């Protein structure tokens, strides 16, 4: 993926860029918004990563200007402020995702992957399939190898997130945000306890685990069962 990174803290910027490059992405870094504004339209980026607080033109204004020009490239805002209002502002300015600093690097990677591959048709998909599990979104029916599995609504939502992001890691924070709409991290392991229920329902009668736990980052369903 070709990623644009606008971040005024050079050390963070270098660390993030290095990590992303190691994963095989192309990364262009800019320390301020004004320079970035010039290259975005013709840059052919897959994802924009913008720090919200920048000296000069800040990330939010930059994003508004970019969106005003008609550019629809997925954008992720980074911020050191966890203020709830900031979140809303960011999403209203046209951000597709919003990540509060500090973040684990794996979190950023997981979210960028989800953003970069987000296709417009995603919204109208009615059948999700991966690793032998199929999910009919209209009938809200889940099957593993044609056996119907009865899931609670939240378990269904959890599985849906994993299936939509098949082969990509979905982090705890993403799940908290997208399944429960929690913009913060409770002390109680909500994701883990629901995940263990989902797992036991999915795996009952099957020898292998349908969901992979990626240590320290999150969960994943592989599109082809091992």
């Amino acid at each position: 993926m070709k990623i644009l990174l606008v971040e005024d803290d050079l050390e963070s910027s270098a660390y993030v860029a290095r990590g992303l490059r190691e994963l095989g992405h192309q990364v262009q870094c800019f320390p301020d918004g004004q320079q970035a504004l010039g290259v975005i339209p013709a840059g052919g980026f897959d994802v924009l990563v913008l720090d919200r607080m920048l000296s000069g033109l800040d990330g939010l204004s930059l994003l508004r200007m970019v969106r005003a020009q008609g550019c629809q490239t997925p954008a992720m805002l980074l911020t050191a402020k966890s203020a709830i209002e900031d979140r809303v502002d960011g999403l209203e300015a046209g951000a597709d995702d919003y990540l509060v600093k500090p973040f684990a690097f794996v979190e950023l990677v997981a979210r960028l992957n989800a953003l970069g591959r987000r296709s417009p048709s995603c919204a109208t998909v009615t059948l999700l399939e991966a690793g032998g599990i199929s999910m009919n979104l209209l009938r809200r029916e889940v099957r593993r190898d044609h056996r119907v599995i009865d899931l609670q609504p939240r378990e269904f939502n959890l599985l849906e997130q994993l299936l939509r992001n098949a082969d990509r890691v979905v982090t705890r924070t993403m799940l908290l945000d997208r399944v429960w709409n929690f913009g913060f991290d409770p002390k109680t392991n909500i994701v883990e306890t629901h995940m263990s229920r989902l797992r036991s329902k999915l795996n009952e009668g099957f020898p292998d685990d349908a969901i992979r736990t990626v240590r320290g980052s999150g969960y994943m369903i592989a599109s082809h069962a091992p």
Partner: protein
Amino acid sequence: MPRSIRGLSLGVAMMSGLIITLLGLATYRFVHEEIECQINQRIRIEADALLAHHKRHGFAALVDLVNTLDRHATPEDLSYLEGADSKGRSMGYIVTDASGRRRAGSLAANVPPPGWSEFVPFHSPDGASAMAQAINTPLPGGGRLVVAADRAVVDQMDLKLLVLFLGAFALILAVGTAAVIGLGRLVRGRLSTIEGSAAAIMAGDLSRRMPLDGSAEEFDRLAMILNSMLDRIQTLMNNLKQVSSDIAHDLRTPLNRLRGRLEEAEGTATEPIQRERLAAAIREADDLLDLFSSILAISEIEGQTVRSRFQTVALHDIIEETAEAFRPAYEQAGMSLMLAIAPMTISGDRQLIQRCLVNLLDNALAHTSAGTDVTISTEARDDQVALTIADNGPGIADGDRERIFQRFARLDHSRSTSGYGLGLNMVAAIAAAHGGSVRVIPTAVGLTIEILLPTASKSTSKALR
């Protein structure tokens, strides 16, 4: 001394009433005595003149003179002193001889005892009974002379004085009461606007100021001083806010970098023991970063800005959702989570209410053990909603009931569990931001926390004001 305006008004009214009464009594006494003295004086002069006549011309001449005086007195001359004309008559007389027989004088009364008598009952010529003051003096050579004057003038004077003073008393009482009430209204009016402004400021609206009327008088001066004090406080608060958010921001960036480096090191570590230690270090860094974001979140909640996002939210929905998220964790811990809620709406921020519930449920889960029942219930109370979360766990000491809502408050037995004691402080901040309150309800078993939140209609009208 009464401290309230009502008490002060009453005190002043009573005091002025008392002074008027004392003044009235003193005047009454003085005037009464003075008139009695004057009557006595006239009686004395009359008696002396008659005695002199008797001395010079003898008893028979005195009888003649008294008869003459009586004849000249007109029947209308009832009140002797008042009707006294230039001739100085209009008195009543009795002349008796040495044997005590009445020889002259038309005074329709019994002969009073010798000397001065203040109250001698008599009948005036038209037959009405009245009182007179009289002197009974002996005549040289036998017999007695009685000279009497009607006391009606004293009673009339007393009555006039009484009417005058009652009038004055009523007038002063009325004027004084009106003045005190008016002043009280004025003072209370000004104080209540100041009170209202102060309450709004305490509720978080630091931009609010005391109203001025431009008179530059006492209250305006007080308001101006309060306003300049508020300006100063606001400046300091803004500085403090700026400094603390700067610190939080400035510390988060290097901490974040540190975390990144640890993460990098963890990724390249070859030994499992190294990886484990680095993971532990990352968790520590996460805890610290978590602390900063909690502090920033609480400051944000305590500020005024969160209110602008308030809308009508269904409290029961949020409770059900949050409880549902926690249920598996509770069951895993061998605890049960029960709901006793009714549909009700409040004006608030969905995410904040959610966070408040999450903190309470986190808390109950962390500080109780298997077998504990936790119940969330709601109850409508007038224009408030009481949201209660109760457990039958170990509870807390009575002395800790207030303390658990303070920032960084950690009870002794919870030292072993993780966290910085910000969870319940945030709950209190969220309740306060919604115009509500939080407290621990004393119970025999376990811990019961009650949050009072205003229902939708009331807090909306509050926000509009």
